[in-house]
């Protein structure tokens, strides 16, 4: 079993739709939760970072963490064609004194104009 499970998609939605992206993780030791966005042929860029259960909002993006279910989500409101990218969830813990990050496989999102 992978430490982080994420549906690779692809997910195709019309412009303006609400997008829901999800991951599950297996190890309750994970303390930090992140979402990265990766455009084609680019490196991942950090979108959201949280360390507690609950919601964190940043503009059109909301990250949700449920530690009891080991479930993390990213919601995108009023989706735009520029949101078309691969979204990677990531979890981490301090291991050996550093933040060891484990990534999901990524969900490819396409927003159709």
């Amino acid at each position, binding site marked *: 079993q992978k430490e982080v499970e994420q549906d690779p998609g692809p997910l195709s939605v019309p412009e303006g739709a609400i997008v829901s992206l999800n991951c599950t993780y297996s190890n309750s030791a994970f303390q930090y939760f992140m979402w990265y966005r990766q455009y084609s042929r680019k*490196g991942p860029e*950090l979108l959201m970072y949280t360390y507690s259960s609950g919601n964190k909002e940043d503009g059109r993006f909301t990250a949700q963490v449920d530690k009891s279910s080991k479930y993390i989500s990213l919601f995108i409101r009023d989706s735009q064609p520029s949101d078309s990218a691969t979204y990677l969830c990531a979890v981490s813990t301090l291991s050996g004194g550093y933040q060891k990050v484990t990534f*999901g496989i990524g969900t490819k999102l396409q927003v159709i104009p």
Partner: protein
Amino acid sequence: GAGVSQSPSNKVTEKGKDVELRCDPISGHTALYWYRQSLGQGLEFLIYFQGNSAPDKSGLPSDRFSAERTGGSVSTLTIQRTQQEDSAVYLCASSLAITDTQYFGPGTRLTVL
């Protein structure tokens, strides 16, 4: 300011040849990480540096892979006697400290023929 840079952006090599991939982290970042991203595999941790030392090399796939960092800055990932299964995107990331958020470079796309 300048982000993480990597060179070359693309590298095509023949099976059995050695390759060197370079990473220039964000100035002042003490921690540096190497990852590999293959189709259908997600990001795979290879090695991390704190300063010039590599406390965690656990992700290096075989002894054909090695990395060094000099002057607490530039890092080189070397793959000896490349194999076709080494074809992937090699991503470098850096962070201010080992407990901080990682910022990624654009990656080097390696193709082994």
